[in-house]
C-alpha cells in the first residue's frame, strides 16, 4: 500500500521546471488575443441585450440561471457598468478591451495571476452568455484558462519574475498542474476517438468528406477534394486511431514526439481545411504546453546514456 501510494505521489507530483507553464501562459495569451480580435467587428452584435444584436444574450442567460445562478455571465458585468453610468454598448466594449488587455498581459507575463483570472472570468462570461453561439473552442479555452489560473504563476519566463524577483515556486506543484493538463488531454482524445470509432462514417469516406464540404467548413472546393477521395478512408481511420491511442503513445518517451507531431498536424489541417483557426490554435497550445517540454531532454538523456554505456 505504501509503495502504491509512493508511486501515485511520484506520478502526480513530479518535480518539474516551469517551461510548460510559460508556454501555456504565452499560448493562451495569444489565443485570447486572437479570440478578441477575430470577434472585434461582431462583439456587440453577438452579445447585445434583449431586442438588439443577433439573438441577444437574454435567453442563454435565463437558461443558465435555471441550471445555476452562480455561473458568471456578461449580464453581471453589463449591470455593473450601467450602474456606474455607462450605456450597454459602452459596457460591452469595455469588456472587450479588458479581455484584450488581459491577453496582452498574459503574453508578456505582467500581473500574470491577475491577468489569468481576468481572462478566464471575462471569457467565461462571454462563452456562457453566448450559449447557442459558443462551440468547442470556448470549451477548450475555458479549460486552459481555468488550469492556468490555478497553476503556480508567474514562472521564470515572465516579466513579473524579472521585475519582482519572486522566490521560485514549488517544482512539485508545477509538476502537478502539468499532470492535470496531460491527463485531461488524454481523456479528451480518448473519448473523442472512442465516439468517432463508434460511427460508421469514420471507417469509410463519408465523415471526412461531409466534414469538409459542409458549410461553413467548405473552405476547399469539393471539385478539388473529390480528387483525394481515395485518401479519405485512410485519413478517417488514422484520425480515429490517433485520438483513441493518444493516452497510450503520448506517455511513452519513444512515441511521444511522433504522436505530438501527428496530433498538432491534424489540428493544423483542421484549421486550414475547415477554417477553424481558433480551434486549431487552442488545441496546439494545450498539446505543446502539456507534452512539448522534455522532448529534447528525453533525446539528450538517451544520448548521454548511450555515451556513458
Amino acid at each position, binding site marked *: 500500500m505504501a509503495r502504491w501510494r509512493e508511486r501515485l505521489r511520484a506520478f502526480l507530483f513530479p518535480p518539474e521546471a516551469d517551461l510548460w507553464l510559460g508556454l501555456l501562459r504565452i499560448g493562451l495569451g495569444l489565443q485570447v488575443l486572437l479570440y478578441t480580435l477575430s470577434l472585434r467587428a461582431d462583439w456587440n452584435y453577438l452579445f447585445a441585450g434583449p431586442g438588439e444584436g443577433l439573438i441577444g444574450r437574454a435567453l442563454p442567460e435565463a437558461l443558465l440561471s435555471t441550471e445555476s445562478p452562480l455561473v458568471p455571465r456578461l449580464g453581471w458585468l453589463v449591470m455593473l457598468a450601467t450602474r456606474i453610468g455607462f450605456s450597454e454598448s459602452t459596457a460591452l466594449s469595455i469588456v472587450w478591451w479588458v479581455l484584450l488587455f488581459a491577453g496582452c498581459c498574459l503574453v508578456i507575463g505582467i500581473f500574470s495571476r491577475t491577468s489569468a483570472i481576468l481572462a478566464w472570468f471575462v471569457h467565461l462570461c462571454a462563452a456562457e452568455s453566448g450559449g447557442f453561439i459558443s462551440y468547442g473552442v470556448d470549451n477548450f479555452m475555458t479549460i486552459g484558462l481555468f488550469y492556468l489560473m490555478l497553476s503556480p504563476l508567474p514562472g521564470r519566463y515572465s516579466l513579473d519574475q524579472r521585475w519582482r524577483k519572486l522566490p521560485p515556486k514549488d517544482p512539485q506543484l508545477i509538476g502537478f498542474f502539468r499532470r492535470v493538463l496531460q491527463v485531461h488531454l488524454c481523456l479528451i482524445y480518448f473519448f473523442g476517438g472512442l465516439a468517432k470509432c463508434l460511427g460508421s462514417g469514420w471507417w469509410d469516406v*463519408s465523415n471526412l468528406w461531409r466534414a469538409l464540404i459542409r458549410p461553413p467548413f467548405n473552405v476547399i472546393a469539393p471539385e478539388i477534394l473529390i480528387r483525394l477521395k481515395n485518401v479519405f478512408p485512410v485519413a478517417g481511420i488514422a484520425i480515429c486511431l490517433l485520438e483513441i491511442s493518444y493516452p497510450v503513445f503520448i506517455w511513452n518517451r519513444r512515441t511521444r514526439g511522433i504522436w505530438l507531431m501527428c496530433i498538432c498536424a491534424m489540428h493544423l489541417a483542421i484549421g486550414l481545411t475547415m477554417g477553424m483557426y481558433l480551434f486549431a490554435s487552442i488545441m496546439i497550445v494545450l498539446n505543446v504546453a502539456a507534452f512539448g517540454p522534455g522532448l529534447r531532454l528525453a533525446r539528450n538523456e538517451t544520448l548521454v546514456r548511450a555515451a556513458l554505456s
Partner: protein
Amino acid sequence: MLRQQRVYLAWFVLHFLLIITISCRDIVWLVAHKLTILPAPFRAAAQKVEPIATALDDKLSASNPLRRALLTYLHIAGIDRGYGYFAPNVPSGYKLVFELHCPDGRVQYELPGVNSAAAGLRVASLVDEIGRTNSDPLREYIIKALAASAWREHPGVKTVRAVFGSLNLPSPAEFERGKRESYDFLYAYDFSRAEEPAKAENH
C-alpha cells in the same frame, strides 16, 4: 504524503471523476439512441445503464444546492460537456433563409449574417441548435430573434418569412455523378410588423 498534496489529490480525483462521468454519459447516450455501429445487445445494455448515468440530474431538484454547486463547478472549469466533436458521424447541417417582402412587392433573400468568419462559425452553431432542438417554442424564439435582427437591417420591409431546412450532402460517388447539395424544407415562420405571434408552417 504532505497535507497540501492530499488536498490536491482529492481535487484531482473529484475533477477527473466528473470528466469521466460526463464523457461516459455521452457515449452511453449515443449507444442507447442507436447512433453507433454497435450491435443490439450493446444498445440494450446502454438503455439499462442510461438512467444510472442521468440519476443525479433526475433525482435532484433544480434548486438543490448540491446540484447547483456541481453545475457551477462544471461550467467554470469548462467540463460541462463531453468531447464527441464530429462524432459518431458528421451531421448534415441546416440552413435558415429570410424572405424579405418589400412594400412594392419585391422579395429579397438574406441569410443571418455577421461581419467576420469567426462569428460566421458561431452563427452556424446557432443554426444547428435550431435544427437539433425538439422544443418548438425555443425554435420559434430563436428564429424570431434572428428575423428581428434582419428586420433592423432592412426597416422598410413589410413582412419577413423565415424558411428553415435541412441540408442534404452528396456522397463522393453522387458528387461525381453531378449531384450537388440540396435542402429539405422543415419549417417556415411568417412575421409581420404588427405584434402578432408568428404563423408557423411545418413540413
